[in-house]
């Protein structure tokens, strides 16, 4: 009998893990991916949609086309998980498992900040990005605020990329001189990681983008065009772009598998649930103190697949995750820098260059035929224990 592996979530982590398990274990495993939409969305593309540089069509594909033929796909939401071995689905059915992988991702909870739904734009969904693109199209100068309404959030560099690319966009349209741009940061610097802030802050300054630090968004008043911070400051806007607060998925909380914020308590090296060793978690769903990004899931997936393969073969799992992440950070003007780091080594981002810009451009285009299938070398992402 093949081992039954159920993966909840068909994003980067879920899809890649499913394909790696099928490739590595063949007929010793039967993998089922459960996903509520059956569509795989390339979320880094939302940024380009918002700025009118791409349309939404290339951002979503049928998940079935990305999975190896023997992997089953169930297009339905998971309602509740019995950690002892069964996933209950929304329409009443259930699937048994020997191994469960939580690749459930994060959800947006903009309603947790009063006024944010009505008063702010974002580019963290296709609908949000299209709505923002429309508002930018008719924007003719004034005050733009760009910021973050809660930590943690997906793709930490994205709001900075947006503000720098927005500055470019307004310059090209000839309305930069009559637009004031301010970046609101919840911390006392522009970015969570200090070494990256040291590269980015001088760029913000050169581009005339004001940086307002320690601004933790408390409320938005759309009628007055004012954002208020927990620290007691107010900022006025004509156009407001805020990354909404994020939380773990409802199924995590409904199953009693979540910690604060609905994030899954996960061992930082083995990626096992801290209370249920037969459950592994990866990607945005975990409570690990690293970037919530596709890159993180990409580097975690081989570790999860290898650990389950070892268990299926009756050997001791040895692969561990060392916190490896690699993110591009586009700084506008056709230049990009790159953040590469792990638990032990903070990033030392190079000065933005055209070379990294080309690399990001190529990655965006090659994503569909490389990452979900595991065609990008991942050797460096896993560390075998002695």
């Amino acid at each position: 009998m093949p081992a039954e592996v159920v993966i909840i979530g068909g994003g980067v982590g879920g899809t890649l893990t499913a394909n790696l398990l099928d490739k590595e274990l063949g007929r010793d495993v039967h993998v089922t991916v459960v996903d509520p939409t059956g569509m795989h969305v390339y979320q880094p593309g939302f940024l380009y949609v918002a700025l009118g540089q791409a349309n939404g069509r290339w951002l979503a594909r049928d998940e079935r086309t990305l999975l190896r033929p023997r992997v089953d796909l169930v297009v339905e939401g998971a309602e509740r998980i019995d950690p002892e071995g069964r996933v209950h689905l929304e329409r009443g059915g259930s699937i048994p498992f020997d191994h469960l992988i939580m690749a459930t991702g994060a959800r947006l909870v903009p309603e947790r900040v009063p006024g944010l739904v009505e008063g702010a734009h974002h580019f963290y969904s296709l609908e949000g990005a299209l709505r923002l693109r429309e508002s930018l199209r008719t924007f003719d100068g004034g005050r733009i605020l760009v910021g973050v309404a809660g930590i943690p959030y997906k793709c930490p560099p994205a709001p900075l990329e947006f503000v720098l690319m927005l500055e470019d966009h307004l310059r090209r349209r000839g309305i930069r001189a009559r637009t004031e741009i301010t970046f609101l940061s919840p911390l006392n610097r522009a970015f969570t990681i200090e070494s990256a802030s040291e590269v980015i802050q001088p760029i913000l300054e050169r581009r005339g983008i004001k940086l307002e630090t320690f601004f933790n968004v408390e409320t938005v008043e759309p009628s007055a065009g004012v954002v208020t911070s927990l620290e007691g400051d107010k900022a006025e806007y004509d156009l407001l772009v805020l990354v909404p607060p994020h939380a773990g998925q409802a199924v995590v909380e409904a199953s009693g598998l979540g910690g604060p914020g609905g994030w899954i308590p996960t061992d930082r090296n083995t990626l096992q649930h801290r209370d249920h060793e037969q459950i592994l978690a990866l990607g945005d769903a975990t409570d690990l103190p690293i970037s919530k990004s596709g890159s993180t899931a990409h580097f975690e997936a081989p570790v999860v697949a290898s650990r389950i393969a070892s268990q299926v073969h009756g050997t001791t799992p040895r692969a561990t995750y060392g916190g490896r992440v690699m993110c591009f950070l586009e700084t506008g003007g056709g230049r990009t820098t790159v953040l590469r780091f792990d638990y032990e080594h903070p990033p030392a981002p190079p000065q933005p260059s055209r070379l990294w810009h080309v690399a990001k451009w190529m990655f965006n285009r090659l994503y569909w035929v490389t990452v979900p299938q595991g065609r990008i070398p991942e050797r460096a992402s896993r560390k075998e224990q002695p």
Partner: protein
Amino acid sequence: MAVEVQDLMKVERRIDARGMPCPGPLMSLIGAIRESSVRDVIEVLSSDEGSKTDIPAWVEKAGHELVAVVTEDGYTRFFVRKAR
């Protein structure tokens, strides 16, 4: 007998953020401040070096009160009173 900081005030909430990298301890404090009442004291334990500057700077900016900072072996304890 040595008098401990926590003997001098009632600590309403204790956040053990040891092992959490920056900005985790500060964001945990900010989350706790949101949920606390005025005058409550929150204790944050952090082993991150950055907290030694980030936490006092945020407390001052946000108008709260840093009641005490105690250096222990390998970590620091911050006692913050919500002032408004």
